[in-house]
């Protein structure tokens, strides 16, 4: 397949793996922040190509994993209100709230539909004025522009039956939180799709303030291996910076049009990240001008705020302090069929990925 096979070329991969082996002179720990990278690393068997001194740990970049349990509770409560249809990304269906998941709510009769985009959710609202369609807006700078454009479109169409339950988050503050929290890492594999929007400049504080190596990379095996090689060289040369390996998609300034839409619709706010707590300026909220689309304002949502009582260590895993296999629940109580924490639910979650690809290794 064009534009894919070139980046999965076995010869090139073996050459890169060889170069990594030659360049690695000690132990290195790199955090891949983005859940898409976690999934790609394990799907392509990247760890089996690396020398033992190189450790890749997963960060907080799976949108589902960092979605607070209270948010799921709010969605479930909304889904049972009269006339409400929740149109959600499929990943969210099985995430456990403090009492049940959307999937369970659907089985009990709530109208919950899976969509591939915010736009598709708006389409449902426009085609049936009797429904009140709520779109759970989750994700980082990658999905936020899509929500922004959809809100603007809904505004233009005068759609008064489309709402957003917003939980958008932004990545750089969470990365800073992880560094400050004392995670022992030598560098970041910076998120690819987030960087397409923000540009590489959003991560320049990492080498400048904290002296950590940083490379923005794509999702193909040659991308990831090239990034690891570039990180090793930054560490070896004591020359941290933000390098763009993913230069077919990422620039220093990013997608300014998408940024403009985001700024039009959203403003910065503090946000609750599951496992990490409240992160200052870690989220986005709808601006006052668009509050009629805010499901949190337009509906009366009542939920009892019970954090799930579990020994799940998702928080430590998202910070890179622990690996999934260090959790006592992993693969015994907590499995993809019966997830205790969100990291086991999403295909991009660290625990789910470890379970799928490394169990009993």
């Amino acid at each position: 397949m064009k534009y894919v096979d070139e980046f999965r070329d076995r010869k090139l991969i073996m050459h890169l793996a060889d170069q990594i082996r030659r360049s690695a002179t000690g132990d290195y720990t790199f955090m891949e922040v983005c859940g898409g990278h976690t999934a790609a690393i394990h799907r392509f068997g990247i760890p089996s190509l690396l020398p033992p001194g190189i450790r890749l740990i997963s960060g907080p970049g799976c949108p589902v994993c960092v979605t607070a349990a209270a948010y799921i509770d709010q969605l479930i409560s909304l889904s049972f209100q009269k006339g409400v249809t929740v149109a959600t990304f499929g990943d969210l269906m099985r995430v456990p709230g403090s009492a049940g998941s959307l999937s369970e709510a659907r089985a009990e009769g709530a109208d919950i539909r899976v969509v591939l985009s915010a736009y598709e959710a708006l389409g449902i609202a426009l085609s049936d004025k009797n429904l009140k369609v709520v779109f759970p807006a989750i994700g980082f700078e990658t999905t936020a522009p899509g929500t922004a454009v959809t809100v603007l479109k809904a505004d233009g169409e005068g759609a008064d039956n489309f709402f957003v339950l917003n939980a958008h988050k932004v990545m750089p503050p969470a990365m800073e939180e992880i560094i400050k929290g004392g995670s022992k890492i030598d560098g970041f594999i910076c998120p690819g799709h987030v960087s397409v929007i923000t540009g590489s400049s959003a991560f320049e504080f990492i080498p400048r303030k904290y002296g950590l190596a940083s490379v923005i990379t794509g999702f193909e095996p040659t991308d990831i291996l090239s990034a690891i090689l570039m990180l090793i060289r930054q560490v070896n040369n004591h020359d941290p910076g933000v390098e763009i390996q993913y230069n077919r998609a990422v620039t220093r300034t990013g997608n300014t049009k998408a940024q403009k839409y985001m700024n039009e619709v959203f403003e910065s706010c503090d946000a609750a990240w599951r496992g990490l707590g409240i992160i200052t300026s870690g989220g986005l909220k709808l601006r006052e001008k668009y509050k009629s689309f805010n499901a949190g304002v337009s509906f009366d949502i009542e939920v009892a705020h019970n954090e799930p009582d579990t020994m799940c260590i998702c928080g430590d895993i998202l910070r890179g302090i622990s690996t999934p296999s260090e959790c006592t629940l992993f693969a015994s109580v907590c499995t993809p069929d019966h997830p205790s924490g969100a990291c086991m639910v999403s295909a991009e979650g660290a625990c789910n990925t470890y379970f799928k690809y490394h169990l009993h290794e």
Partner: protein
Amino acid sequence: MNEKITLSHGSGGRQTHDLIHSVFAKHFGMKEPMTDSALLAVPYEMIAFTTDSYVVNPIFFPGGNIGKLAICGTVNDLAVSGADPAYIAASFIIEEGFEISDLERIAASMADEAETAGIKIMTGDTKVVEKGHCDRIFITTSGVGILRNDQSHISSGAHIKAGDRLIINGPPGNHEVTIIASRRQLAFDVPLTSDCASLNHLIKKVLDQSPGVHFMRDLTRGGLAAALNELAGMISCGIMIDEALVPFEEPVRGLCEILGFDPLTLASEGRVVIAAAADEAQKILNVMRSDPAGRDSSVIGEITAEKPGRVIVKSSTGGRRFLDMPSGLLLPRIC
């Protein structure tokens, strides 16, 4: 107005009788007297017996419909057990308001597929439920096949040993991707049709010409990932496949890249994976490639002595990973 199914078509009275005659008996070639049971002559000691329900949505899709699927699926379940499919029973649960012309289309394609596969639809049942109590039409088919005595080891994989080659009869996943594309208004065309097909002739050819078939499984829900993990759980060996050898079609790979699916977990309705003795594999491959249903057959991996009970994928990059049983739901109701 088009003729529609009403509750009285399921009442058991005259309308039921008329519907059965005007649609099912006509297409399936059933003759009077229509008794409570079909009487079947069974020439061998062992028969294979299977049943499956079909609830696919949409009921008509590129490359087939729920009726064709209901025949192929049951034929294939029998064929991969090493049996010659012989007789099928078909039961219909129909929602009030269903168009009779659609029922005719479904019955006609069932009759066509049964003829292609060389089996007879012998008996059946029809129920009509109130609007909203089922989604348009559900079909259950049960099938009986005649098992040759020397093939009874196939369904359990009793003869499998390390070194056996794994062969697939064509690109997997087309059925599920076709259904995904027909269910959703994707903003692009997916140039695919379902692979839905009866495989009994292909399989019979292989069994007639080689004693080297050690196991067969048709790839339905869960795709290769499910079929291979089920096999790994049944035997005391491991399984290794090379992802680069699995002949996925580009639209399938493309859609998986966009939507984030693992193509190894996608369902087919006309694909079989065969474990073949190493010294017979080439011959079996040649036989398969000479049949229209196996033109794109290829060897995708082998049975290994290492990692018993586990399926390992050599990724296209040369890295290795475990392939686990798929969990959760990709998409509701694909068959």
